[in-house]
């Protein structure tokens, strides 16, 4: 069937099979490779993207379920001059990654978390990321990154999701 949706600020229309998963639509149809397929069982969070601003695991969403909605991937957090979002910068500055496989999912889950709770405690960050597995870092620097992003955002931009909602700055 035909779906119409917004991906990283760009309105799209595509013919998809109903069984096509959102992660496959993003990676294979649109060539957006930030979101990864990890466990493929709704556990690891590597495929996390934003659906209407909320974190979801795109291995467990059908592309047709995103019809009429807005999807944001980690590519969509970056401004077209290459400036990363506050959350992405915080992960870089705090060494919130090692191999990087979980990182796009971690960044999207963190972006959603901070949009819902701009001033999380360390415990709330840890619980808020329980749907994302990292096999390298031991999580400490990831938690540090999110707390640093929260601090920076509270003194700067109005919300964690602001970079992702500026349609004009994104090209698919």
């Amino acid at each position, binding site marked *: 069937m035909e779906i119409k949706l917004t991906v990283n600020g760009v309105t799209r229309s595509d013919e998809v099979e*109903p069984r096509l998963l959102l992660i496959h639509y993003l990676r294979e149809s649109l060539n957006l490779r930030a979101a990864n397929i990890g466990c493929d069982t709704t556990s690891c969070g590597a495929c996390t993207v934003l659906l209407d601003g909320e974190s979801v695991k795109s291995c467990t969403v059908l592309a047709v*379920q995103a019809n009429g909605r807005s999807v944001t991937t980690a590519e969509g957090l970056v401004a077209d001059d290459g400036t990363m979002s506050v959350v992405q910068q915080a992960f870089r500055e705090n060494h919130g990654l090692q191999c990087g496989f979980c990182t796009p999912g971690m960044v999207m889950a963190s972006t959603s978390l901070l949009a819902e709770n701009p001033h999380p405690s360390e415990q709330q960050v840890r619980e808020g990321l329980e749907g994302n597995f990292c096999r390298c870092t031991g999580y400490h620097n990831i938690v540090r990154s999110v707390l640093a992003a929260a601090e920076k955002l509270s003194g700067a931009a109005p919300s964690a999701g602001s970079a992702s909602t500026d349609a004009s700055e994104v090209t698919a």
Partner: protein
Amino acid sequence: MIPAAFDYEVADSPAHAISLLAEHGEDAKLLAGGHSLLPMMKVRLAQPAVLVDIARVTELSGIRLDGDEVVIGATTRHAEVVGSSLLRAEVPILAYAAAQVGDPQIRHRGTIGGSLAHADPSADLPMTLLALGGAVEITGPSGARVVGVDDFFVGPFESALAPDELLTAVRVPRGGSVRWGYQKFVRRANDWAIVGVAVYDGRVALASMGGTPLRASATEQALRSGASIEEAAALAADGTSPGYDLHADADYRAHLARVLTRRALEGKTG
């Protein structure tokens, strides 16, 4: 993993969903958040020929007061239950239980009606509804009916819903000051309970202690007879039939049921 091919229909009202179910018969399944159904379809444990998407039926979603009850629409997502100030004030055990389901991403998609219809004996919300003594509103070709929770869960992953029926809403009693407790024992983040216990107003419900969520009847009876919490909790596994798996054997589950029931009766959460 890719589901088997299916046709996809979008319902625009409960009546439309029921007519689509009638049209396609037992080959059709309802889709809301899809967080129980899609994983089963990906491993081909479920291969419906038709999915009827009810997530866009706005009247199936929402939380409202109705006299002594709170009514929660079937497609209300877990995150909305967690964040509802009405539920936090009137049915705090339900808001708490919804926060124990999966992880934030899952709670952004999964729905209360989907969780109850899936009828997983180890899941949070079936156990919690059983403790609350709530009811489920169901609509089908022959009209609407209300099924009390004690009659709703009939077997493992099996409810009183017929294949041509739609779960439209959940009714739970208001009770902001009622004493409650909740215990969920897990070894991994975002897992199902190895054993779970929900206590509400003298009703004690267990998860993972049999083929359906179960009332701890002996414990409830003892409490009514004036037994202490310790005495009543010691009976929590009586009449249950826990299974065994990688995480726990039946004896260990019975032990957990007794310990967790005591903690839940003491009003503890965890």
